[in-house]
């Protein structure tokens, strides 16, 4: 294999899931012969006839169908065309999928794939990061892979899990991110739910996930010039959240910056800071900080979008401020 993109990893994970598990099927708008709006299911309907089904524009019913099929023992993967449209299926996700096991003892093993996050020119309705909304609900697992390898293995883990999984795959990473090969075994490097030290360091910790891991890594590189060694923690899943790894990192560095592409209010960054403040207050040498998107809808124009979300340089600025506190 030459180089595999994040998007291709998602396609290959679905191909493998379809191949290895007869209970798996894919349901979503334009996923069949057309191969999906982003081509994440390209050729899969040909390879697995009858198991990659075009859905009407009915996000509520798409998730409802997946839930009903899961109750009968299937392992459906639902592709939302964009994460933003999952709001139209919100009720089924949070009120039916998330409550089913608690209420009835019957698991609800569905995967809802959310092409998430901003890309230049996408605007308010094709750019959203929904992880905090779904992570709020007990019963939902929320995955936010930042690497090609994770996109592949975590999607396979999602299909194998007994619980409903909201799989937030980042559209900006679809084509930008490449790997030479994919892991043959799943969950070997890191078990499900475990965060990853993406870059070890000793002066400050950045906790990030999804596309922001790469902005954080770039910022850490930039800070080398300033003489700082920054640790970057990639959460991988935001629910469950690996508090232990976060606290261990903060114990090493004493300083915390949490970076998220979503809005700050009640979000993942707020949750991380809350946990560190309550469980690791004594580890902190400075007040924990967060950097999120600006508090407006995601703007359309690249010039605005590039400032709306955190970038390597805004992360670096925040780090410098944190290191002076």
């Amino acid at each position: 294999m030459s180089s595999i993109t994040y998007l291709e990893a998602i396609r290959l994970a679905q191909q493998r899931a379809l191949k290895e598990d007869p209970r798996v099927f894919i349901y979503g708008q334009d996923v069949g012969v057309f191969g999906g709006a982003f081509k994440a299911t390209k050729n899969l309907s040909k390879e697995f006839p009858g198991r990659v089904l075009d859905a009407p524009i009915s996000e509520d019913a798409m998730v409802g169908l997946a839930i009903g099929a899961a109750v009968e023992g299937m392992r459906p993967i639902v592709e939302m065309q964009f994460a933003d449209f999952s709001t139209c299926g919100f009720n089924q996700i949070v009120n039916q999928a998330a409550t089913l096991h608690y209420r009835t003892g019957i698991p609800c093993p569905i995967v809802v794939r959310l092409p998430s996050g901003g890309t230049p020119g996408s605007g308010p309705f094709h750019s959203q990061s929904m992880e905090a909304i779904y992570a709020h609900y007990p019963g939902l697992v929320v995955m936010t892979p930042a690497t090609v390898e994770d996109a592949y293995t975590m999607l396979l883990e999602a299909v194998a899990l007994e619980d409903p999984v909201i799989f937030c795959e980042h559209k900006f990473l679809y084509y930008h991110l490449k790997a030479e090969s994919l892991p043959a075994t799943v969950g070997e490097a890191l078990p499900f739910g475990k965060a990853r030290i993406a870059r070890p360091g000793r002066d400050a910790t950045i906790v990030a996930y999804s596309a922001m891991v790469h902005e954080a890594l770039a910022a850490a590189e930039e800070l080398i010039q300033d003489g700082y060694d920054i640790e970057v923690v990639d959460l991988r899943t935001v629910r469950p959240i690996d508090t232990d790894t976060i606290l261990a990192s903060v114990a090493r560095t004493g300083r915390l910056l949490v970076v998220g592409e979503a809005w700050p209010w009640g979000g993942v960054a707020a949750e991380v800071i809350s946990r560190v403040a309550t469980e690791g207050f004594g580890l902190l040498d400075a007040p924990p900080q967060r950097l999120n998107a600006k508090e407006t809808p995601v703007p359309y124009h690249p010039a605005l979008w590039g400032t709306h979300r955190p970038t390597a340089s805004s992360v670096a600025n925040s780090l410098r401020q944190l290191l002076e506190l």
Partner: protein
Amino acid sequence: MPAAKSPKTKRSQIKSSQGNSADTAARELLRRAYRTMLEARLLEEKLAALYRSGKIVGGVFLGRGQEALSVALGVHLRRGDIYAPLIRDQAGRLAFGDTILDTLRTYLGSSLGSMRGRDGNIHRGRPSEGYHAMISHLGAMVSTVCGGLVAKRFRGEKSAVGATCIGEGGTSTGSFHEGMNMAAVENLPLVVVVANNQYSYSTPNDRQFACSDLLSKATGYGVVGHRATGNDLLDCLGVIGEAVAAARRGEGPQLVVADLLRLVGHGEHDDASYIPEAMKKSPLGRDCLELARQSLIEREWLSKEEAVSWHEAVEKEVEETSSKVLREPPPDPAEEDWNAFASPSLGRNL
């Protein structure tokens, strides 16, 4: 019992074209349906009494007046089918295999009930047995049943059907629309029964929809439509029986619309004073249970004595079960795992 014997002969003399066995089957179906309606009615009367005496935590939503329609669906389903009943389907639930015991346990919050105190009243089911536990959000169960049917199709199970019920108010939801359209696109063996009881809580039909006939929706979705007289058990059994059979034959989704009235408030907290007296006195307001009893007795498929003894037997069962359940333990918060996840690894560190 003895009195019921002679009518059978008499009846077969009248319907000479039908064979004896078909007649016996019709008779048994009707008797079973009536008996189940009676169970639902008396059980619900007990639930209302328990509600008034403060024994029930939460609301009580009854199906009085809708038992014929509800049971007609339940009795036509069988093991391997999928059934997602809604608010006013106590009769259909019992016909599908739910029990007086589990109903009381769920309403009274017994830890031994299928929902273990985690959910209550009408929000109960056993999904692994095809008996879905409705969520409150109206319309949501249509697509869920579709999903179960898609799974069965994947497995090559040919003859199963899926069924759900909904009020006319619920047909205004986006979920209902999406579910119906999806079922039609996938040509699923789905039966949806709409109980048009003229009021959605207090909202009359002219504030709920503007089409002159709800059944015209069937055409819009490209599904087969059926109309039943909602308080006429025989008609409901015939019409829904045909709808279920058509779905089983692979003829795609079936929409049944039946007009009727609920003969209680929306819930036991509601006196339904918004329903005009004239409507209550109209044919719509006739009690399906009484009509069914009369019809059975007229046919001599049930004797008056038997009707009385059934009533007494059901009443006794409900009373005894209720006293038993009232002594059962409530859920114990200290024993709960307080974990919404199914994966064993997900109990902690969330």
